[in-house]
């Protein structure tokens, strides 16, 4: 698997020698920042940490390479996101482009931006609580004995509607694999919780 160059800066430098008509990398970032997640349309794929890089192809400087990473292995939105990126960039004049998928390092909710977290909450989804430790090598050391069989969550997840922390877990898998299903014990509304991953 090729390791993609990662450039998360929103004002990526323009490629040298770009002609006036040729769209720049900055243009590409701007176009992609408009691409929303199909299941959470208020949040962009940049804010969710799905976009991992945009660069010109080393072997073919006319061709744009966009690197994305799937959230969960089975996320059905992954292919739709790639199609949306392709469509948006083609419309903006990027005729030659390739979309690469990068699996390592594995996507983590730590990559969701503060703005993305705010938008999730506004959309009615409680954003992930706390950070997931990921080693720099990508290796995961799982202490199986430390995995709690009962869902004794120590974190009090705040209701995205009334902010009450008196909430309870209904199911670890909600409307999508990335979300758990909670209920607020004060306003009684059910809500999704974006699980730390």
């Amino acid at each position, binding site marked *: *698997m090729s390791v993609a160059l990662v450039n998360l800066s929103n004002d990526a430098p323009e490629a040298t020698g770009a002609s006036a008509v040729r769209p720049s990398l900055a243009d590409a970032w701007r176009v992609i920042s408009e691409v929303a997640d199909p299941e959470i349309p208020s949040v962009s794929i940049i804010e969710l940490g799905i976009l991992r890089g945009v660069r010109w192809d080393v072997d073919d400087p006319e061709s744009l390479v966009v690197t994305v990473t*799937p959230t*969960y*292995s*089975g*996320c*059905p939105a992954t292919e739709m996101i790639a199609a949306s990126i392709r469509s948006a960039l083609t419309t903006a004049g990027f005729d030659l482009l390739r979309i690469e998928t990068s*699996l*390592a*390092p*594995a*996507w*983590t909710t730590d990559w969701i931006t503060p703005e993305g977290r705010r938008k999730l909450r506004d959309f009615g989804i409680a954003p992930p609580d706390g950070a*997931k430790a990921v080693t720099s090598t*990508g*290796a*995961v*050391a*799982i202490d*199986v*004995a430390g*995995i*709690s*069989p*009962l*869902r004794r969550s120590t974190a009090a997840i705040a209701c995205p509607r009334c902010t009450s922390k008196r909430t309870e877990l*209904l*199911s*670890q*898998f*909600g*409307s*999508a*694999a990335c979300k758990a*299903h909670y209920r607020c014990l004060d306003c009684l509304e059910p809500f999704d919780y974006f*699980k730390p*991953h």
Partner: protein
Amino acid sequence: MTASIPATRNEALFQYLLRLADSPLVLAQRLGEWIGHGPALEEDIAQANVGLDLLGQARLWLGLAGEVEARYALAGRDEDQLAFLRDSADFRNLLLVEQPNGSFADTAARQFLFDAWHVLLLSELSRSGDARIAGIAAKAAKEATYHIERSADWVIRLGDGTDESHMRMQAAIDALWTYTGEMFTPDAIELELIDAGVAADVRSLAEPWRRHVHAVFEEATLTAPAEAFMQQGGKRGVHTEHLGHLLAEMQVLQRSYQGAHW
């Protein structure tokens, strides 16, 4: 590095990748059978979501298997060809995961016995000398952690539940126990790849698996079955009669309309 790998090593790697792929693939199909039949809407959705994770993992493993196959065969098959056009004798999944869904207790017990192994396996594989295997495993391990939290929870809730649920969970564990030995018994292909630093040494997973499973049984007031005869065969394509029926349903569309896509 790739160029120096002999063809036989690539064949072994292909076979190993099929094992990694086929267990989550077959289990995903089993979980899919529950859709619309779960005991509660939340569990119906949860079961489908676990299946979806496993299906996604299987796709990653099969995709890699096809790339490896292309290095020594005339052409590598893609993930769809590998999933839908192989017969049961060519499947390399564990016998455990092809067992029928039975009651919700049977399904939960099967899931727990598998998850407890799967999370250990993936954690070990995330340190594989093969970077692509390590990458897929590191991603899948995070998902498997959520799976075992849920399945262990169900073993405890049913085991330490009513007389009826306890009886059913104990019966499920007793019936499935004979399929657990296979998870920790490497064969020649695995031993070769363990030596090469590519495969996980499943022998080293037996003790942490046993400890974890016994701890959950204790909390669930269940009795761990005594040492018994362990069935083998999944790794060499000798399956129980259930796999053929499962594949007939899973593969019917691609068998009837080869190459169909949408």
